């Protein structure tokens, strides 16, 4: 399969996954782009390109988050250089959307990175075997880890409440 087809097929889900993983769409966009640049430079030998892209994207996001953390520490010493960020939405919409987003991101951030990876890769439709390969675990243990992570999130995100 050629690269542009792979991009069209996998970029949206990779970006979505990385945004959920990091809570930062800009960082996620950069990490996703880096994964595809690496795909062009040195494509994987295995046929599991999608899992490879997610693994490389996850590593790129992790590295970018470390860089950002260093930069934020610098900005704290020079607050006048702090990026302005996106303009706010209308007040009510921004409150609702922002509150929900903060709640979900905080809950995900409260999980161990491995549990977060497992849950979010499951959301993207990966098999337990692919998830196990990505996090260095056994296929048979992934179901248990998913159940445990879901239980952790259940109280915080009210997952047991019926959707109206």
């Amino acid at each position, binding site marked *: 399969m050629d690269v542009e087809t792979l991009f069209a097929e996998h*970029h949206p889900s990779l970006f979505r996954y990385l945004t959920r993983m990091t809570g930062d769409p800009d960082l996620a966009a950069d990490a996703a782009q880096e994964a595809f640049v690496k795909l*062009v430079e040195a494509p994987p030998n295995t046929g599991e390109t999608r899992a490879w892209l997610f693994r490389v994207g996850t590593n790129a996001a992790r590295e970018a988050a470390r860089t950002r953390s260093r930069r934020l520490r610098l900005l704290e010493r020079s607050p006048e250089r702090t990026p302005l960020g996106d*303009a706010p939405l209308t007040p009510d919409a921004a409150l609702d959307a922002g509150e929900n987003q903060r709640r979900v991101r905080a809950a995900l951030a409260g999980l161990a990175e491995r549990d977060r990876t497992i849950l979010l890769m499951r*959301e993207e439709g990966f098999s*337990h075997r692919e998830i196990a390969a990505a996090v260095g675990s056994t296929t048979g243990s992934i*179901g248990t880890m998913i159940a445990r992570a879901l239980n952790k999130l259940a109280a915080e995100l009210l*997952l*047991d409440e019926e959707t109206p």
Partner: protein
Amino acid sequence: MMTAGVHEPIPEGELVRFLDGQLTAAERMEMETHLARCVPCQRRLHALRGRSERLSELLEATDPAVPPPLRHGSPVASADELARRKMGTGGSLPAPWLRAAAIVAVLFGIGMFASPARAWVADWIGARWAELSGKAVPATVAASAPGPPSRGGSTRVEFIPSGADFSLHFASPQRAGGLTLRRGENPAAVAEVAGGTAELLILPDGIRVQNAGSSTAEYRLTVPPEVERVRIRVGDSTLEVISGLKIGAEERITLSAPTG
């Protein structure tokens, strides 16, 4: 592997494997037999399914609407599409604009690492993006039709950017030099290099500057009124996001490497 008997509770991990379609045919049959007789396990399965579905809904509801740099359509998958993905049957075919944008992005990526083809890729991207966005190709871009592979990028470019967010990406921090950013009145963005060498490559949502760490070049960028935010990146880091610049106003940003 399932080992629970009819009266033993099924471990939650096995229930998740069942939900996710990860059991073998024999395991699945054993699970269904057990579930048919075990109300507590049915309840636990129901709870796990509900939590999974609720989490998916929450994640979808809080996803960003558009993945940059593809800002011209919604990437949010429908429930049906997500369900198909979870079943491992893939999603729907990408829209034509998405495929075209993907080709542009991939060619840009290739162009960054294949120096002889870089200028051609930059020109090609500008022309294709102008076609896709339905906007006229400004004279300065149209004049730079595909040329010999050895030719470098431009030191002055002018084009109509695609959206409210403009990306200016420097390949490297510089020894000295800086950027003067201005918001103009014309619909075209204009970027120029002075006092040094660097190549300017037009992207769908901005410009990539191929500069060197030893450079002391000065840059001048004028963005149109439609551009609300300019995101300045140096290497892998975002240096600054500038918004709210008034028409006619200028701002200067230093491009030397940060310390620490």
